[in-house]
């Protein structure tokens, strides 16, 4: 009975979402449509996070890494557009995996916006920083992500990709003809900021990824985090 009920719930929810998306699409309301799609991209990660069996340590680890990523702007305040948030997220993902990477990224976005003010950019930042963590976690066992140059290329590309995705939200909604000149001029206007982001990623990854990995891996193996088999603490799991 419970299974049928759940099937009806999820089925009707998906139907409503598809209907809404179709209405937005045919009426050319691309801005609400883009928010709907971004929401759909974020929500599955959080559903999984809600349902997974996790210990209190693992939940607190995600919270602490998110907070570190969010406050890491503070010591770099005298340098405009240099902020190691993306670097912290990449490091968290390389040490603890793709899902943790996504959560750390998107929670850092929510929390820093609670202090700086929420806006229509919040879901987009959640998505971008979440995806930086997610992709870094997915690629962490490939041979090039274990090498410095591979990580640097990854960080450099995401520095630009982040800015490009963030440009989309107002381009989609507020221009009537999305032509190449519109895109080109928006991307030229943001080029300096994207380049600064990409270069600071490369800088941090080159100089500090070794130290960070040592700190994070040490904590991970000491507390047996996110890998219950080799946990030294046999404890009841939080619901």
């Amino acid at each position: 009975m419970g299974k049928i009920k759940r099937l009806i719930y999820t089925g009707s929810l998906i139907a409503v979402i598809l209907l809404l998306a179709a209405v937005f699409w045919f009426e050319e309301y691309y801005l609400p449509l883009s928010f709907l799609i971004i929401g759909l991209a974020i929500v599955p990660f959080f559903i999984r996070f809600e349902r997974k069996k996790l210990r209190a340590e693992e939940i607190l680890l995600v919270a602490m890494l998110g907070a570190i990523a969010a406050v890491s702007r503070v010591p770099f305040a005298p340098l405009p557009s240099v902020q190691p948030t993306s670097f912290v997220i990449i490091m968290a993902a390389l040490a603890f995996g793709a899902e943790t990477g996504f959560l750390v990224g998107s929670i850092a976005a929510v929390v820093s916006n609670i202090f700086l003010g929420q806006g229509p950019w919040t879901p987009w930042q959640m998505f971008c920083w979440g995806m930086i963590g997610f992709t870094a976690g997915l690629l962490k066992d490939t041979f090039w992500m274990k090498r410095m140059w591979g990580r640097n290329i990854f960080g450099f590309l995401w520095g630009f990709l982040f800015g490009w995705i963030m440009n989309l939200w107002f381009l989609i909604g507020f221009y009537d003809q999305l032509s190449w000149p519109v895109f080109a001029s928006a991307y030229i206007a943001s080029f300096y900021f994207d380049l600064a982001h990409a270069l600071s990623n490369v800088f941090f990854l080159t100089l500090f990824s070794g130290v960070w990995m040592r700190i994070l891996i040490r904590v991970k193996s000491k507390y047996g985090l996110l890998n219950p088999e080799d946990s030294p603490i046999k404890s009841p799991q939080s619901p």
Partner: protein
Amino acid sequence: MGRADMVYGFSGLHPRLCLLYFIVLLAACMMFQHPVYLLASLLCIIVLLFSLDGGRALKKVIKGYLLIALIISISNPLFSSRGATILFYMMDRPVTLEAIAYGAIFALSLLNILLAFVAFNLVVTPDKLLYLLTPYAPRTAFVITVTLRFVPLLTRRLQQIMTIQKVMGYLQPGGSKKHLMREGMETMHTLVGWSLEEALQTAGSMRARGYGIGRRSSGTAYRMDRRDRLVLWIMTVTGLNIVIGALFGVNHYEVYPRLQGWQWSVQLAIHLLSYAVFLAIPLAMNGKEWLHWRFIKSNM
């Protein structure tokens, strides 16, 4: 006028109703392209911001937001040549009246959305946001709460670490960019080493005190009272009217191919009226409190 932390009037309403109000407002700002509707929304949001904190939050952001809106309204006619009424040619491209109007409408729409979020931040404070999230995603709400608590803690620690770096002479103002970045990262290393392990000890202590046993309770509780139900009723009636009217295209406004003229109809009047009533709910509530306050003072 009011204060930033006031909990009477609109801010004292049940958080779900505040959220509903802002969802409808934001959706209307995104989807209704009729200039009268956009101007009505803008007026309402600005008055709402003044009634919430005397316009302090508005003054902080208005210059930047106006600049963004200006850029959009100017750049649209430069890129787009749609529309029938050609005003003049610029670099062999026709600049049309319709493209200018479209740019202005969407700049207004963007301005509305950005300012509505300023009001949203004042009304739906983080604690209310977490209250709304808790029943659906308890663990996510918990992580966000804990992260929020860590942020001031870590900021304080960062200040302590940086003070020590300054005293030791490592962190001097006017150093080279590379030096500043290096020292900034040294600060971060100290912070991570200090805090990460402590977080895990906090988790151990939480578990020892029974974290995860049984249902989680919420620190703040809100109850739907008579006033909330009345407001919900007004919101439902006017909101349904707005949605149905919009579905039938009552307030549809065409920019292309030729700018639509002024067309009044009974349906449009009714629709506009119900939209205005919906928008005015927080203004009426805050206005009532303000009048009440004046009235009490004048009697003393």
